């Protein structure tokens, strides 16, 4: 399905970014950075959209139709931005399907921050949320690699979250 899912805080710093890029690759790999740049540039469109219309609908629709990717955006009432990136070569999704994905992510985010031990405004660390995102992310295309890759995915879960390496505190211990 999706190839990248991202949550961005009200102040436009990333809360959570997960891509289909194998976790064995460095965060700074070109592929990974490309997603980061993609999400980051989409904030322009979101800013503009939020400035222009007093949007009642949280779903902002297709933001950019860049050659290889379609990027959809969603803004919660507290201005948390959620992004779903889908490769254009993939099947086309109907708006309602995308909306459902966003609703799920939104609900997931809410239940994550409902955790009294959750540090609001910091990188999201939650196994449940991670699971949810994983179901939405594209399965690894290579069928041979599939089993081993997913194994890596689960084992490296907490490390894969990008900023967890520098968040300083003992993150990753809280579950809802």
């Amino acid at each position, binding site marked *: 399905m999706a190839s990248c899912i991202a949550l961005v*805080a*009200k*102040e*436009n*710093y*990333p809360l959570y970014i997960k891509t289909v890029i194998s976790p064995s690759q460095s*965060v*700074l790999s070109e592929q*990974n*950075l490309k997603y*980061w*740049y993609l999400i*980051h*540039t989409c*904030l*322009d*469109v979101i*800013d*503009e959209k939020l400035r222009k219309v007093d949007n009642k609908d949280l779903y902002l629709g297709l*933001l*950019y*139709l*860049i*050659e290889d990717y379609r990027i959809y955006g969603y803004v919660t009432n*507290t201005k948390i931005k959620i992004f779903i990136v889908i490769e254009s070569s993939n099947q086309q999704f109907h708006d309602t399907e995308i909306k459902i994905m966003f609703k799920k992510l939104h609900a997931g985010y809410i239940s994550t921050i409902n955790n009294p031990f959750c540090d*609001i*405004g910091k990188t999201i660390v939650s196994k449940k949320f991670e699971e949810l995102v994983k179901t939405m992310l594209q399965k690894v295309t290579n069928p041979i690699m599939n089993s081993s890759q997913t194994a890596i995915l689960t084992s490296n879960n907490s490390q894969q979250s*990008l*900023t967890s*390496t*520098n968040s*300083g505190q003992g993150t990753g211990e809280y579950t809802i």
Partner: protein
Amino acid sequence: MSWASHIPTELSVHPLPLVVLTGLDIRHNAVHKEIWDGFYSKNNTKFRYSLLDGDHEYPKAKGKRSLEVYVEKGILKTNWFHKHLYLIPSLVVVFFELDWDEPNWKEKQMECATKIELVRQSLLDRNTRIILILIQKHPNIPVDGDSGLTKERYPSLCNACSIKTNHLFLLHVEYLQGYIMKLEEEAFNEPTQTYYNLEIKAVKFKRDSLIKVTHQYLFVRLPIKIAFFNEMKQDIFKAIDNYKQAYLSLLDIRFGDTNTLEIKTVAGIINYKLCKLLFEIKHPIDAIEQFRRHIDIFKLKIGPSDLAFEHSAWMSKQFQVMGELFENAINKEYFNAVQTQHPGFYFHSSANYSIQRRIHSREILQSLNLSNKNWTSENPSPIESIDKLEFLGQRPWRQAQKSMEILDQLKEKDGILCLQELESKENLSPLITNLFKQAISHFKIFNCKRMKQYLSVCMAEEYFYAKDYQESLNIYVQVLNDYSNEHWWPILTSIMFNALKCAYLVADITNYCLICTEIIGKNTILSNETKSLIQKNLIRVISNEVPIVEYHQIDTSIHSIENVSQKWKEEMAKQSSPTMGQNMETSQVLSAHKLIPAHVNGMVPFVDCKVRFTSTIFNSNEYVELKVYLRTNCVDQIQFDKLYVRFNIPAYNQYCILQNKDSLNFEPNKIYELDFKFLPQSSDIGKDLEISSLSLEIGNRENRVLILHWKGDCKNALAEENFTLDTFKKLSLPYRKSDAPRELDWNEINISPSTSIVSRKSKIELVLEHKQPVIVNECYPIKLTIVNKEETTIENLSLSVELLSINSASDIDSPISTIDKNIARLWIGSIDKNLHEIGKTYTLPNLESKQQLTEIIYIQMRELKSFELSFKLNYTNETELGKNEDQERHEFDTEIKSKKIVKCSCVQENKIKLETINPFQFNFKFLSMQMGEIEVVRFGEPFFVLCEISNNSAYALKFKDSYLEKGKLVNFKESEENESFLKYETLKSIEMATECFCLVINDDSDSKKVPLGELVLKWKRRNLGSIFDTKEIDEDIETDSESNDDLKQDDLTDELIVETRFPLPEVLAEPFPFIIESELPDYGWLGKEFNLNYKIINKTQSVLEIECSLSENEFFAISGKKMDLIQILPNDFYNFTYLIYPLKIGHCKLPSFHVKVNSPIEISDALKKQESQANSSDSLDTVIENMIPSQLYIFPEKIDSIFKE
């Protein structure tokens, strides 16, 4: 690599019908030149003109060939567009100088016919039209018919030249512009349209006989031709239809390695045309949709893998031209672009494909050894004719073949090799950077600053690739700030890492150090080893050593690093060479070179810093304490050399410099607390002390110094992450604290970058005694008692008192302004009513310890208004230095061995709020002489004014005097003695007193409102509480016993007496023709007659004739004229005298007296009118009733005798 991404330049030219002009000799003939310039130079949008000789050879038309034998060689010929745009005319115009009255007509006619025939010969088999234009000198000769000569010669000429009569036109040199316009409209339009219609018809005819299987290429070519001819004749919609048809037919062709490029090239051309035309007819959505479809179809048609770069080049070109078309359409204002759909995206994609092209070509080149074959003329290169292809998109070594298989594999291999070689010579960087620049300019328009940043980064990478490290570094440095504000660390890390490489490669010391300070911080996502190495390099640079290249992971296969270390050495030598420091200027420049300031506001360094004054207020006699917290988050331990703090008051800068190396050696991730303390100067009392900056230096001044510079309130981007839910975080703090109670938590350190220096807390007591509320206008006394509670003598004591008004609308606590002098007055000590002051400073004598001083202050407030009174005591005394008692610190006591005595000044301020009330409430009544209440008085007639004065205040008030200051038009009635009823009276709370005046209003003719004057009351408050010692208390006991009147009179002389004036209301006074004055005893006796006298006074200026009557009643027997008609002279009077005899006792009604005015007539009319109009109360009788008494009390006779006895 023009062969793969070729879009012929002819396509961008706007197709216009080609019109060839012949017979003009512009070199030798000025008139001809003028004509040519007239056609050509005009900004022509209708035709394309070309000047040719009359005997010009046009491209020969191909003979009609049978389709059955036709072999398809390619889709579209390279020169086809060019040929039809520039070579084959739709119309040939033959100019010929000939006047109708030409003498040698026959010869000239022949000559002309020959010329036309020549043109016609060279256009054999073409549909090109020919027209003849005669250049004539005499425009006066009429063209149409009436001249016999013209009538005769016109058809003869047409006949001779065998052209239709409507293809012959005239041109007069005089009116050139007008003729040109007319010719274009009338003469050129029709033949060109006909030409293209014929061409289209011919092509259509050919197309209709095509066979689907064998003529696949023609199925593409012919619609393109039709479309282009339609374009020529400006029929855009038909053109679009035909191009679409061609595009669909093109997709029907089977793709293979041999023809992919050809199909793609043609597809590119058709797509270009389609998009261009769709934009022109303002259908941008259709154009974009067409382009997307085009890209989707051909994206995966890569062709031979050895030439994959060819495909990328083609893709790049597609996007680029689309971007250009889009841009052009916007510039021509066909429509507006939006944020999510504008040319920037296309340029961006184009750049990306160009980068991909380079990647592909590099991959291919790496795997291949370039042949070093030398192609000679005998053995020509297979791609020699690459620029001279017959058909678009074909391989030069196998042109004009429609085979799906490659016949000559060896030749193919050679050919591909040659193409690869050609590609390897391409330098794509300028193209790519240019595309990025174009994209950036578009994204800028649409407010996409992040996209702009991203593209800048891409551009910087491109420059880096192109080894223009300086340019690359410049761009990186520009975007770094933007990105660091947004906290996208992985992006930032990658940019910084690349920027550091650039800085290293160009040996830019300043930027190198700055980037290092950021990159070794905790936020970057680099491994600790890398960070450690970079930190080592930073230290090396600061100590003038060349950094180690291996730490930067530079791909040495691409980037040469040979000269870099030499460059570094030169840079360092340049900056530290001591020999150059001879003249002052250069030495300053050099020292500036050595200092590398890093302003932390724009970056996130590896050191966190927080500054805190330990208190928000410091007394002038205690030490200001400042704490600096530092925490490094680099990987390795680091040694700083100097720390200094700067303040807004520079005098304190000297106290906060730390150069101790031991205390500036920081372990990573530990919090270091540094203390500074200094004594504030007395001149700075009342000022705010703020930290303006904090600097931290690494390196010694001989080599190089990196200064981390925090400005303002140390808004380190790391210190506050700008999180939204700050309050929530604070709430959760106690839990964490209990986990590790001993350790200092960085997040818990509050930044407080400013403090105030205040004067020492005074120890003086100020007691205020007074009795609220203040009564308006009174001299309100306040008793001040100042007690010195200091240990020492107070000197320079001064008291300043100020009256401040309270703005009731806003905050009550903040008195805004002083009060107007006319409203309030203030005296200290004694009352001097001539002084108008509301604020003053008094110097008071020195006070020994425990001594006390008393002052009385009087305030007079003339309006009902609450206000604030501020008392400020300033003094100086000698005091001991130290902390406040409640903040004792032993560490300080040990430091200061001898107790310092400091002279310091103190301020004590007390404020009281005062309410005012009005003392009196007045009520007025007007009474007639008969004590009836009246509203209207008459001139000359006396009346009473009754003033009811009630005491509204809570205090007893004592009057000294009261009187009426009468108005100008008012007189006291002579008989009345105006003695004050209130004199020496005391009015207690809620009590009421009455004052009465009898007044007469001076005569006047017109009725009007008359001001009566002002009631003046002189009074004071009887009891002022404890302020005036015991005397008042006695008075309190006395209450209001009459016997003490004398004593009170003395009292009333004192200065506290004030005057309150109250204006009496105006009364309506009106004229009346007469006044009746009655004369009768105050009472009567039963059976004892007495005189009743009515004196009627004429108030008018004319003789008054009145009829008077006295009606009888049961109470009295009357003798006298009961009815009389009298005349009274002006201002004279007449007496009616009656003798009456009481018949009953008690309140007896007097016989009623009636008056009727007969003359002057106007008065009697006026009175009658008034009577009829108004209520009965206003009738003449009622008026008279008010003038004379209506009743008399009659005593019985018996009592009379008793009285007599």
